[in-house]
């Protein structure tokens, strides 16, 4: 699917940003489609904030090109970019009330906007984030979630081409974070502005994004929709970062679309190759990755020929689901997640673990 330049709001072309000896952003390329919810996901220090700050204009790239709405923005200062940022710690102005904070961007515009128009737009923006009536509050009189919404309103009121959000939910407690995730996503659909979202929480990225770029050491490892990344991870790193996976490592003994891998215990496992991954060659170090929910358990006396014998080592009850850590002789310790309705096993029970051949995925080990 080829997209025309007009459908792209932000584009990086071979962008490099170094701080001294550290390469924070390393030859990064991506295109963010207009109106999409795009996330950067990766562990701490992988260059997410740096990428965002490059878009915002707070940093200049060492090399490469950044385009916003199809135009290069080299040396255009932040205050001239049609981009707004929700800062990680909100950065609300402490000497102004909520209304003045939200109206700040509008007051900077030239030609001037009339005060009546500003207060009307501020009111609308506050209504949008469900904070009507909070105009006169000061930032320290607000809860974390409310501050976060003020920061959001302060950015959105300027109707930016792109809204940048740097871990805006990180400081909130779990319950509030879940609520805000839904709200943010709904809001993004309503206003239709491109959201560029930074997070190190894979669950958050999966539930909110249209597209996700998984980063590692300043590079984008894989980019795609949440389902693509979950079902067809490129390598072990992505599979481990997006959702949970069991990894059984070994060596490739037969390559192709179906890969055969021989484990240290000389067990031969067969699994399809990830569609996006490079071809595996015989002799490569590889892993079979299997999601915990794709593995099944049965009693050792039940009928069935496939599977590996093991013992339930530990049980974690999660409510609707239950996790079993099963210790097997042949393929090591595996995590199995089953609906709690089936839960018929106790710690120490002898069981058989088994899975469909297409439940696994053969990936290059790293």
């Amino acid at each position, binding site marked *: 699917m080829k997209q025309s330049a007009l459908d792209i709001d932000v584009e990086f072309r071979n962008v490099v940003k170094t701080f001294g000896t550290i390469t924070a952003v390393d030859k990064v390329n991506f295109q963010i489609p207009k109106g999409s919810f795009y996330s950067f996901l990766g562990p701490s220090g992988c260059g997410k904030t740096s990428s965002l700050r490059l878009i*915002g204009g*707070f940093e200049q790239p060492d090399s490469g090109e950044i385009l916003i709405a199809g135009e290069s923005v080299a040396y255009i*200062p*932040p*205050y*001239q970019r049609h*981009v*707004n*940022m929700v*800062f990680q*710690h909100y*950065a*609300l*102005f*402490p*000497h102004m009330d909520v209304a003045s904070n939200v109206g*700040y*961007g509008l007051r*900077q*515009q030239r030609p001037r906007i009339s005060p009546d128009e500003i207060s009307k737009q501020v009111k609308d923006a506050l209504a949008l984030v469900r904070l009507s009536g909070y105009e006169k509050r*000061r*930032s*320290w009189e607000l809860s974390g979630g409310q501050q976060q919404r003020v920061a959001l309103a*302060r*950015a959105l009121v*300027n109707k930016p081409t792109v809204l940048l959000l740097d871990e805006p939910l990180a400081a909130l407690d779990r319950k509030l974070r879940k609520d805000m995730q839904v709200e943010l996503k709904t809001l993004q659909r309503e206003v239709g502005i491109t959201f560029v979202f930074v997070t190190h929480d894979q669950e958050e990225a999966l539930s909110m994004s249209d597209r996700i770029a998984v980063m590692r050491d300043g590079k984008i490892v894989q980019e795609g929709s949440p389902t693509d990344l979950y079902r067809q991870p490129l390598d072990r790193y992505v599979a481990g970062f997006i959702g949970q996976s069991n990894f059984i490592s070994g060596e490739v003994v037969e390559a192709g679309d179906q890969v055969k891998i021989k484990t240290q215990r000389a067990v031969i496992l067969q699994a399809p190759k990830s569609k996006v991954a490079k071809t595996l060659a015989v002799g490569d170090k590889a892993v079979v990755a299997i999601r915990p929910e794709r593995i099944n358990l049965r009693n050792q006396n039940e009928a069935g020929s496939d599977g590996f014998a093991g013992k339930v080592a530990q049980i974690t009850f999660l409510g609707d689901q239950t996790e079993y850590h099963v210790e097997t002789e042949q393929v090591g310790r595996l995590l199995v997640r089953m609906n709690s309705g089936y839960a018929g096993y106790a710690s120490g029970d002898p069981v058989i673990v088994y899975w469909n051949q297409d439940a696994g995925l053969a990936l290059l080990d790293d």
Partner: protein
Amino acid sequence: MVNNTTHRKKSIRTWLPTALLLAPASLWYLFLLIAPLVIVAVFSFGARAPEGGYAPAFTLEQYLKLPTRSTPFVNTLWLASLGTVSCILIAYPLAYYLATRASAKAKSILVALIIVPFWTSFLIRTYAWVTILSSRGIPAILASLGIVHDLVLLNTPFAITLGIVYNYLPLMTFPLYVSLERLDKRLLEASKDLGANRLATFFQITLPLSASGLITGSMLVFILLMGEYLIPALLGGGKIFFVGNALVDLFLQSRNWPFGSAVAMALNFIMIIIISVYLWLTSRLGGESREEVSLF
């Protein structure tokens, strides 16, 4: 009952250290501040003894004579204001540089440079300026270069302002530095992100958020200047009198203690007004921006 005694023991145990901790300072203030203040207040309503000094009386005569001494008050107020404003204009860029741009090394060197002159006594430092500004100093150099002739620097408001800035600059710089240092730099980025250029960001964010340092520094400088004696005495050459000089004159030369006391009371009154304004300003800053740099 048992409870009660332990309770009392406890309260003794808490108030006794408090009392011991506060006693030296309390005695100090009682004998060296409150008592003299009471004496001055009493004297100000008295009469001058024929041979000089104080004669008991109760009259408002001294206060009614105050307008005859308005010049030192005017001098003090306008030169203290000019000096304070000059300090702000020089200290603000310096403090801003120290707080936002200077590397750790440049910072320590600059701070040392600000402090080092203070290893010399106030008197000697100020006296040095007398030589520099006198007719044999800078004016002589400028004349020999043929730039200006007959330039008079010493004994002018300029000389006094210069002496003020020279001596009081650190008092302005450090509170400003503290408030600028504490300013969250992310707020500046947020401001730029929202479309404000550097200048707009300075006036809307940096300046208001360093207001506490600005007010504190100004008060420190201004209040101390109200009682300044040495700078006008040396660099004003007795031509430009401050209230401090007038007081020395009244008490030591004319030995008119009651009138001197009335002048001192008037000065106190002005200070109280200024401090009230200061307290009002800092309370208006309110909330989080009411920082711990405040003076009182």
